């Protein structure tokens, strides 16, 4: 009950529009001060939380994506996918999903995926006669794959907070990510076939065109192979993969494409640094809150509550997923991970739920959070590119909410969709 009161209080504080890190930190500090009359060793907590080698994976993966974007290496990703897939019904939609999938393997962010692919795909789809609603939906929905297909910023955060292998989480995201991409593609083909405005079918690409397209996209495809392959075969850890990927992206953009200036490199590192600063301040503030919750014995109480009521794994997961889904309408992904994970974690252990499996379920649910109104970062991303009305964009993504729920249900029912691949690797 106390936790429910704290959760409601917290959401109310955040709804005043104060910066999330300040809201979390003040809220936590006020409770500690009321309970103990001190500030709870705030500085030590902040230092200890930030002094974490694993976290540097986030700015480094951001840097990698930035080098690829600023170096124009990914500019042609949608064009190449379109050449390869245009003969399918709804071919441009399928191509947008494919481009999102590949970009998701370069970027750890869904918003960056929707922005990058969307600015190429949406105008072209509308010009070719697809309804705007369909175009917004496919990019909004497909873009959410950014955080499920590795690398993934939210998975790094979850891995650090839950003390779970980030490499295992990344690998566990691959099959569910590809499965969802497949579901999205099938949906696009079906929707195009039964659409009231028939979309003209395009001719199949010739062998020469296919070859040219593959050549244009080769470097964008090679980088994820290096990064994910290196992790899968145990050559490097997630953090090392991030550094190797950033250096690799730098080399591709600067030496192969020759499109990256020193100024671009510097600007990319400033942007990546500023963003991770903002992100990690929230992490540090959430650590203060987690500390308070532990002092109030809330995680322990939750374990007792769950065990005395004899909740099964499935019942507990369904309850948590419902709560995360509701939080996802109002909060962004980072806050949800950082607020819920410390509380849920002891229950996972008590019920013998694999934290890797839970991490994937959580991530799919966070994909939903990105497109469920009123707060859905991908909705705002599409609005920023198209200036369309938010209502029109929401109407476009509604089918993808359903498809993501289907994916969530599948991974919940069949854990090996997520756990098979990490089970086969020798991750470090």
């Amino acid at each position: 009950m106390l936790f429910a009161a704290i959760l409601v209080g917290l959401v109310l504080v955040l709804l005043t529009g104060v910066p999330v890190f300040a809201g979390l930190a003040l809220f936590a500090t006020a409770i500690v001060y009321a309970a103990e009359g001190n500030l709870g060793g705030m500085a030590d907590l902040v230092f200890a939380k930030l002094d974490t080698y694993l976290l540097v994976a986030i700015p480094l993966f951001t840097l990698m994506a930035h080098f690829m974007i600023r170096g124009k290496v990914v500019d042609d990703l949608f064009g190449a996918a379109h050449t390869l897939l245009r003969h399918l019904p709804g071919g441009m939609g399928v191509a947008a999903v494919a481009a999102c999938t590949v970009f998701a393997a370069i970027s750890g962010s869904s918003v960056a995926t929707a922005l990058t692919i969307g600015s190429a795909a949406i105008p072209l789809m509308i010009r070719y006669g697809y309804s705007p609603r369909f175009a917004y939906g496919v990019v909004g929905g497909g873009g959410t794959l950014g955080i499920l297909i590795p690398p993934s910023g939210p998975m790094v955060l979850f891995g650090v907070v839950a003390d779970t292998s980030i490499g295992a989480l990344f690998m566990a995201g691959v099959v569910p990510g590809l499965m969802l991409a497949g579901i999205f593609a099938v949906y696009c083909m079906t929707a195009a076939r039964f659409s009231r405005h028939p979309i003209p079918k395009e001719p199949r690409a010739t062998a020469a065109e296919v070859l040219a397209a593959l050549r244009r996209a080769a470097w964008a495809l090679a980088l994820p192979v290096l990064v994910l392959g290196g992790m899968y075969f145990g050559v490097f850890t997630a953090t090392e993969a991030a550094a190797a990927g950033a250096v690799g992206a730098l080399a591709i953009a600067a030496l192969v494409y020759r499109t990256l200036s020193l100024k671009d490199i510097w600007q990319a590192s400033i942007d990546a640094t500023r963003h991770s600063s903002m992100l990690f301040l929230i992490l540090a503030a959430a650590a203060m809150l987690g500390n308070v919750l532990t002092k109030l014995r809330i995680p322990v109480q939750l374990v007792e509550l769950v065990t005395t009521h004899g909740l099964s794994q499935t019942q507990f997961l369904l309850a948590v997923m419902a709560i995360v889904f509701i939080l996802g309408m109002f909060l962004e992904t980072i806050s949800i991970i950082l607020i819920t994970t410390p509380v849920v974690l002891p229950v996972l252990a008590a019920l013998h739920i694999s934290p890797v499996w839970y991490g994937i379920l959580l991530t799919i649910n966070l994909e939903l959070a990105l497109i469920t109104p009123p707060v859905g970062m991908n909705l705002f991303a599409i609005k920023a590119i198209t200036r369309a009305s938010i209502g029109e964009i929401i109407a476009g993504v509604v089918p993808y909410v359903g498809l993501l729920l289907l994916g969530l249900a599948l991974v919940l029912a069949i854990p090996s969709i997520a756990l098979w691949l990490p089970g086969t690797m020798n991750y470090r």
Partner: protein
Amino acid sequence: MKSIGRLVRALAGAGVVVAAAATLVSMVIVAYSVVMRYFFNHRTPWVDELVGYLLVASVMLAAADALFRGEHIAVDVLTERLVGRGRKIVALLGLASVAVIAALLTWEGVDMIAFSRMVDLRSNGYLAAPMWVPQLAVPIGAALLGVAAIVAFIAAWRAPPPTPESRDPSIAATDG
């Protein structure tokens, strides 16, 4: 007053430059450690520790600049529709809360360093560094953030009520 504002903005700009340099250095030394281990079978145990300290410095020193650029995430589902006075009050409340938490963190950070120096606290790792050196980033960054919040507060107080604006999610989003 205006020149103080300019000075603080310049300091925040300098902070983010140091922070970005720390990110690039982290990239280089982590990549270096992979190369050394994989090709030369040589371990570099100092890298993990140093990268942790660089991250603390980079997060704390970039915070003030991120504040000036309005990049700190806030939940604006209720407040974005406000105009005029209401919007101004929300902005002032946000900046005031940042100033308060930054002041507390500076205070506690100075305490932490005094303690580390008193007991000559050293890191457990390979570097055996005196802990107060990497810890310095916490009070310095927090103080910079606090002063930045005060400067931004005064500027927002004096400014005419803002008009509604649309969100502009950045391509660098780490959110998700």
